[in-house]
């Protein structure tokens, strides 16, 4: 029920969007509105989106847009990713998690994979045949990557993997998991390495039922168990062991940029929905919009969202110049996700009782948003990164 959604604001962007990006924006809008939003409730009941929607996204060219064409990708740039993220956030559909697949998983292969790995996996990811996931977090470790306990022991012609992972997005649906484990029986003992795990028919691998979350119900999140799972030697991502920590952290700046883009788009969507609502809704003989408190709260939200977008664009431009620092990416991540939650919360409040009812998009945005301050490195971690850079 999105009856309050107004037309999108005219983009007034500092970013060098071209015609191809505008075309992508339209395709993405149609895809989310017509092929995702109508099924959201069913997917939420199932706890996940069906495989078919991935293949459809692949058909439309919405997968692996930033991957070179030689690996089946779209040959695009980071602006393609941002367009897609913005339109998905605007649609209110947290699932399917295209950005996880496109901007987190596929780049591991592209940047660190061997040629054979890229050719083997990326085309199938681009077509939607293979859904990607990353398995870092463990029940005991949280944001503390170095504290993971999953091990991969080299035994002759294979790796033997044992351990548990939790909060793994796409844990139930992924066909390909980038797994972080500490390697043993190699030169880099007890250092982290990444492995490519194909889950189909994998003995000793178990994914839980989708975890019940506060929001994002159609985006499956699971616990994974690896119980003496055997992986071929060539499942190691890249050539050598022990590079996992660097590989994971090197990707963080870009991932946080994407999180910021999603947060900013969601603020805009929340404000637009709320402005429409308070103009229509009446109380005490006037429109809710006519109360000074309403106007002030929305003026604050509109301003802060504008500031956030300006900073996001500045960060993207710096990223394109290769000059975005980890501290700035951390600022963007913590500040925009904090702001996303506070704006959405203020918008819920302006909806009154309806703000608490899941029929209304703003209520779902509220449930979907809270995790943003926690995932991708909790905002406390961001502050540590910034604080240590001073």
């Amino acid at each position, binding site marked *: 029920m999105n009856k309050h959604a107004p037309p999108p604001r005219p983009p007034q962007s500092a970013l060098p969007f071209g015609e191809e990006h505008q075309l992508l924006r339209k395709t993405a809008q149609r895809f989310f509105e017509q092929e995702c939003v109508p099924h959201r409730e069913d997917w939420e009941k199932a706890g996940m989106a069906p495989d078919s929607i991935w293949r459809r996204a692949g058909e439309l060219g919405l997968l692996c847009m930033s991957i070179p064409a030689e690996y089946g990708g779209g040959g695009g740039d980071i602006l393609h990713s941002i367009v897609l993220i913005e339109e998905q956030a605007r649609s209110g559909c947290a699932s399917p998690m295209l950005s996880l697949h496109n901007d987190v998983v596929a780049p591991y292969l592209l940047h660190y994979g061997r040629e054979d790995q890229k050719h083997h996996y990326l085309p199938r990811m681009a077509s939607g045949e293979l859904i990607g996931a990353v398995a870092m977090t463990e029940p005991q470790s*949280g944001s503390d990557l170095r504290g993971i306990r999953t091990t991969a022991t080299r035994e002759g012609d294979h790796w033997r993997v044992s351990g548990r992972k939790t909060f793994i997005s796409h844990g139930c649906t992924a066909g390909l998991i980038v797994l972080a484990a500490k390697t043993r029986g190699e030169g880099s003992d007890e250092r982290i390495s990444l492995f490519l795990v194909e889950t189909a028919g994998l003995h000793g691998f178990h994914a839980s039922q989708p975890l019940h979350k506060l929001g994002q119900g159609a985006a499956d999140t699971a616990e994974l168990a690896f119980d003496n799972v055997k992986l071929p030697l060539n499942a190691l991502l890249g050539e050598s062991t022990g590079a996992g920590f660097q590989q994971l952290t090197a990707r963080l700046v870009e991932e946080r940029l994407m999180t910021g883009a999603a947060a900013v788009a969601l603020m805009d969507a929340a404000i637009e929905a709320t402005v429409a609502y308070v103009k229509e*809704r009446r*109380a005490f003989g006037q429109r809710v919009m006519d109360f000074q408190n309403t106007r002030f709260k929305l003026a604050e939200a509109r301003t802060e969202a504008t500031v956030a977008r300006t900073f996001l664009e500045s960060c993207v431009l710096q990223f394109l110049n290769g000059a975005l620092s980890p501290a700035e990416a951390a600022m963007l991540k913590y500040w925009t996700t904090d702001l996303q939650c506070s704006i959405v919360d203020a918008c819920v409040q302006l909806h009154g009782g309806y703000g608490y009812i*899941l029929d209304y998009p703003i209520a779902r945005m*509220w449930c979907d948003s*809270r995790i943003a301050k926690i995932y991708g490195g909790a905002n406390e971690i961001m502050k540590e990164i910034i604080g240590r850079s001073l």
Partner: protein
Amino acid sequence: MTQSVHYTAEHELFRTSVRRFLESECLPHIDRWRTQGKMDRDIWLKAAAGGFICTKVSPDYGGGGGDLWHCAIVLEEQTRLGLAELTFYLHSDIIAPYIELYGTDAQKQRYLPPMSRGEVITAIAMTEPGAGSDLQGISTRARREGDHYLLTGQKVFISNAQNAELIVVAAKTDADAGGKGISLFLVETQGAEGFRLGRNLKKIGCKAQDSSELFFDNVRVPAENLLGGVEGRGFVQLVQRLPEERLIMAVSAVASAEAAVEETIAYTKERIVFGQRLIDFQNTRFKLAEAKTTATIARAYLNRSIDRFIEGDFDATDGAMVKWWTTERCFQAIDECLQLHGGYGYMQDSSITRRYADMRLGRIAGGTNEIMKDLIGRTL
């Protein structure tokens, strides 16, 4: 023990039995109630048998004859166990007082004893789709026709309606008289022609508490079911009850923040990250210090408010203050506590996640906090 002038050892005994009841009779069923979106009917009989509903109603009508602390204790214990959404307080401490304070003798005799026994479950229907917190703006009409009234209109966000046999309905008996045209009706809904129970709305939290749409299409209500027997008193009756109702809302806000802080202290002492306990980080200690301070101050304020209410020194402004402040600040404290739980704070089966989702409602329900500020602002 609770710091209050009016809190006695008897209250503490009552608390113990409430907790036992909740643990043995409610906690085991809560997941099912959440899934079905409402409580089971039979829990009301059990609660009544234990003496946990209508605790303030006079023993003459089968009630407990207690004071506001009894109400608070039930709600506090519910909240500590994560069961704040159970609507015993609504029936016992919001609705029963309307009948006891404003009802005719016949109304009291007819309804209060079965309510106290848990045999008749009640709801109250004020809010309408077009009116929200604006009571004077309701459009449900009650037209007198001989010895009965015909009710027509629509209500929304009505809790307990899925199980209720009796609904107190606010309607206009005089459309032109503003607040003075509003009357309350005791509507028996079982088989009432023209009455329809609409959807049970899905909410962010409080999932075991139903929240329904109601439709009235010329529903016949006997004239003797006009509350108090005189038309036009509804608005005054509603307004008079607001301070206590808002104070009751504050109880679960404060109790939930207290529990959240305790749970989070325990969690952060257990959780190890980067080689030390989470509570050993200064940020964790500071955030917890702030949340603990909020909970402590809110508790002192709540207890003093309850005492003042019992002493008859608690007015509309006091009610507005205690409602917005506790629901706002306690929610903030819970939000900070959630953050310290990391990913576990986003899981539906985490206590902190439920508290966060459940307590969001307090800032909206019972008159939004903006309404509270408006009310206070006008008194300055």
